[in-house]
């Protein structure tokens, strides 16, 4: 993908080539021609080229072929997450939150639900590390059955204590205590982002931590370079770079969150590194109920320096 030709608007390919009924979660057929028209109108020639290569059955994108590409892409994304220590990063931020919840008397078990978990890297990493405590249940949810089957297969091989479910994260039989996600927020624009955050406002939910690319002037270049050297799958390269380009600004995320989920106090973690304005790959939107706020700050220790103003 040429850095100069990145299209800043429009969907990522992985968003366009799959479709799910939001109520039944059933997969809907995606007409290849419709996707091609959409990307042509956006003048996203790279996306057109990639979608053109995808097999179709009677004009509909072959779901098995699409799933294969998505699983490969998630595997390559996991490599990048591992390089950037993402599992450990998530654990480091979750620990002070979980301790604050325990100190505040939250009933066991504490359920952590990863929204749009894909092949479940973060949940599996947390389960493998065992660093969050035995009173924590780990669950990944996604709409894509193939990705979740792969997550379950991988978890079984390593005998990990975690669950994966095709479900709407906000309609689980056992509701989440803490919602987490990685690389999800930028997929939601305007009203849909607000709606996503509104859904956190339920009695059982005490906190949320959403990691996404840190929007900075250097992010598109950095993302392009890393995807050029680390990714093989053209879709992963395309979407990875576009993700960094489309990442929400920190201020915007905070404004939307405070308006959509006023029951929580929120802040951005990871805006600064060692109190210096060094751009970071990921930042995270942290929200916690006010009653746990002081304990959370206290548990953060020196890491509190990387936390923006929480309000």
């Amino acid at each position, binding site marked *: 993908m040429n850095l100069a030709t990145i299209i800043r608007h429009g969907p990522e390919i992985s968003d366009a080539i799959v479709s799910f009924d939001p109520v039944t979660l059933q997969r809907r057929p995606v007409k290849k021609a419709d996707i091609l028209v959409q990307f042509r109108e956006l003048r996203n020639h790279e996306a057109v080229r990639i979608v053109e290569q995808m097999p179709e059955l009677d004009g509909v994108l072959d779901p098995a072929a699409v799933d294969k590409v998505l699983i490969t892409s998630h595997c390559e994304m996991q490599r990048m997450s591992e390089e950037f220590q993402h599992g450990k990063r998530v654990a480091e931020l979750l620990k002070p939150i979980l301790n604050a919840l325990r100190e505040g008397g939250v009933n066991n078990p504490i359920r952590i639900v990863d929204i749009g978990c894909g092949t479940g890297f973060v949940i599996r990493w947390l389960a493998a590390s065992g660093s969050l405590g035995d009173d924590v249940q780990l669950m990944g949810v996604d709409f894509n059955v193939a990705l979740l089957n792969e997550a379950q297969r*991988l978890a079984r*091989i390593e005998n990990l204590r975690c669950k994966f479910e095709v479900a709407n994260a906000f309609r689980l039989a056992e509701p989440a205590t803490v919602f987490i996600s990685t690389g999800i927020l930028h997929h939601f624009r305007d009203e849909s982002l607000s709606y996503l955050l509104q859904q956190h406002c339920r009695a059982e939910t005490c906190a949320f931590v959403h990691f996404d690319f840190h929007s900075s002037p250097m992010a598109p270049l950095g993302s392009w370079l890393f995807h050029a*050297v*680390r990714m093989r799958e053209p879709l992963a390269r395309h979407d990875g770079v576009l993700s960094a380009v489309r990442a929400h600004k920190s201020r915007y995320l905070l404004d939307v969150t405070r308006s959509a989920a006023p029951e929580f106090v929120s802040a951005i973690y990871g805006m600064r590194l060692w109190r210096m304005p060094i751009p*970071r790959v990921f930042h995270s939107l942290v929200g916690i109920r006010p009653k746990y706020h002081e304990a959370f700050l206290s548990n953060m220790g020196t890491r509190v320096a990387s936390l923006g103003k929480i309000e």
Partner: protein
Amino acid sequence: MIPVFLWLLATIDSAFIGYREAAGRNALIDKRAYYRRALIRGAVVGQVAVVIVGVIAAIILVNSNDAVALFSKLESVGARMLTIYVPYALILLITFLVRAVPSVDIRSITSVLIFGPFTFIRPIVVLAGAVWGVLAAPGAITIALTLLIVCLMLGLGGILSWLRSRGLIS
């Protein structure tokens, strides 16, 4: 010593080529054994490349009218190549030492500032070292041998991927 240094660098480089070729293909969490195999595989395939270059160089030297002068030429090319490759390798080595610090931020920075960009510029460094080396003793033999080395250095990842696509490695 120059051939030994070149062999050492080639072995380390090919081991990391093995690592990079294997990365992003296995989604398990604990991949220590997988990566250990990949590093060893890369280093072994690298030895094949070294042997190919060594055998061709030996044949040329044996058939040369003045083997001593030709060997000296090849050594001067190798010495100049090292002036490019050794600093590159040293920076990476130092970065690995920094990455040993158990800090998420420090480890991420090593990737952002060094590992990512240095992987990106590796082909340029390979070519720069080759050109700089050949300039020490331009000639048909030195150019041909250097070209062979460059092709092997840049083609090793592709060879490993080809072996994988044939199911010969996993």
